[in-house]
């Protein structure tokens, strides 16, 4: 079970998040004070942390900096009422992995947390419905059946599955395929997508024309 630490001083929001995330299948520990959070982090390990900025004891940004100085790679999602670019930059500079404004709905929070944990590679495999992608063995399983995917197709599918439910822009997929240099106006990506569709099923992989592609969380 994935372990989460929530650091939030608003009791109503903290309790709500704890209930919602527990319901979503996480094992949740919730603390109110920044210093308590630091102590808890010393004693036990987590898969991810949801962190507020304004906290009693020790504020979120300082806690995060201390954590990164300590060489911790724990995925951290900042959840805060502040939403200016400056706040975001400050958080990312301190070492945050993701940033959400407090009014974001719980479903997106859950999706982002899952993506964070997937990307952190702590699980070694990515699961979307009955589709499983094993990062260590570079293999893809559909309902337990091993699929025959090429290296490039695996790269594309991995990015898509790590952000399942979100639309991944073409540019990000091309970056995963070709590195930072742009592939130009080639249709290499389309070819890989076409092949992937044939292997995992049309309904799982949707196109948003001109934008990108998405792996659907619950295909019809």
């Amino acid at each position, binding site marked *: 079970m994935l372990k989460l630490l929530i650091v939030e001083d608003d009791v109503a929001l903290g309790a709500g998040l704890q209930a919602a995330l527990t319901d979503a299948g996480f094992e949740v520990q919730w603390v109110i004070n920044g210093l308590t959070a630091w102590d808890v982090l010393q004693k036990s390990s987590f898969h991810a942390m949801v962190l507020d900025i304004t906290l009693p004891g020790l504020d979120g940004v300082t806690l995060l900096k201390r954590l990164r100085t300590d060489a911790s790679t724990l995925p951290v999602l900042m959840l805060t009422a502040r*939403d200016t*670019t400056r706040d975001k930059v400050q958080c990312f500079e301190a070492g945050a992995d993701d940033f959400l*404004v407090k*009014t974001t*709905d719980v479903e997106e929070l859950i999706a982002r947390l899952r993506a964070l944990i997937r990307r952190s590679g702590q699980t070694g495999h990515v699961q979307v419905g009955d589709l499983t992608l094993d990062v260590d063995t570079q293999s893809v399983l559909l309902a337990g059946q091993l699929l025959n995917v090429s290296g490039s197709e695996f790269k594309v599918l991995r990015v898509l599955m790590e952000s399942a*439910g*979100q*639309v*991944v*822009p*073409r*540019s990000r997929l091309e970056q995963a395929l070709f590195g930072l240099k742009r592939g130009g*106006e080639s249709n290499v990506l389309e070819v890989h997508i076409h092949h992937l569709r044939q292997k995992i099923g049309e309904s799982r992989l*949707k196109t*948003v*024309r*001109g*934008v*990108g592609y*998405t792996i*659907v969380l619950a295909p019809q």
Partner: protein
Amino acid sequence: MLLLALVSVAYWVVIATLTSRDNIDRLNELYDVHLARTAKAFLQLIDPDPEAVQTTTLVLKPTEIDLLLNGTPASLEPVGTTHLPYTPVGSQDNHAATRRLQYGTHLHYQLWRESGNLLAMSAGAPSTLMTQQLGYSDSIDAQGQTWRHYSFHDAAHQARVVVSEPSAFRQALVRHIVVDATLPLALGLPILLGLLWLSIRRGLRPLADLGAEIARRQSDTLTLLPVEQTPTEAKPIVLALNGLLQRLAHTLEQERRFTDDAAHQLRTPLAAIQAQLYAVRHLQDPQQRGEATHRLQDSVARAIRLVNQMLALARLDPEQPAPNFTEVSFGDIAESVCADLAPAALQRDQTLELSVQPGLSSLRGNPDMLSMLLTNLVDNAIHYTPRGGQIRVQAEQDGAAVALLVSDNGPGIAAHERSRVFERFYRVAAQSEPGTGLGLAICRRIAELHHTQLELGDGLHGQGLSVCVRFAL
């Protein structure tokens, strides 16, 4: 002011001291020259026969000598060379001054034969040689009085002339002249400074009044300052202040309106939340409870959306000039906005399509604001277009502009309502979908900040709505 007065007084004292010292030196030189001329004139006046042997002494009254000397100015014309660059002696003015002071009457004259005979002397002069030295010399007599002598030997007359002048008398004269020159200034300067101070004070009075007027103000008194009574020099300041006051008043009005709007607009979703919550707690039927829960969630989402939109608008509202503009690739912005919003369109079975013209020019703008503008437009399209509808986002070159076009095949906005939808909290009449009524107001503000505007038109296939924004390059 005090410092200025002290500095000017000090400056004046230094200048006066230096000038006086200089004047005293020159006056002394002048009197010396005069002494020498008097001696020569005296010799010519007596004009003794060099061969004659005289045993009696001619005694002349000083007044007589003076009269003879001054009465015949020609005899005072320069004799021999003088080391002065000018020849002040002999001028009519000096003459008059000298006479008035009875200068000559204080002098002692002696005319000696080299053999030791005293040929002539002024009455009151001693009958002994007043000085042994030739040329200028000083001595103190038995009474302690200091004398200035001039003595010379004349070979033609075989005579020696000695003229002596009491130093005290010369000092008195010099002091008199120096004091005469400095006293008017010494008396005039303080008066001048006083007048200067008064006039500056008087000149600055309107500024002081203005300062007092501003200091008296309450923080919310934003009436304009009077321009008419302001001195010309201060007018630019007052005008600039008035400009600031006007902007402040505008901002304050905006704030007041925002707070007012916010409170009113938030009441509705909060009231809805209250009602749904009551329903959830009291309804027994699980299906009805489920529906109420759903509506509760919608109301909360609406309140959240409203707060976010109001915050966005409030941040855009103040009269900030050009926000941070950078080179922006509209293609990149459109891609990330559409990627963020596409899941919502997919959920409603809508087709969201983005087409960015290849090689589209980048434009100058604020990326965060442009992103917010497009998010609002696409979000509106997704929101108001029914399930299964179509939404198209286009970015293309349009002459010297980049044109952004968001079109849908939803219900659209009736032509007569199109000009009003940009007002805050305006809701289209035939609209049942909940909205904040702020989205387009935000878009318009962002467009204004980018020196452009939103144009509403017909959407896809002759129905729905299209919003076009042209950014000049």
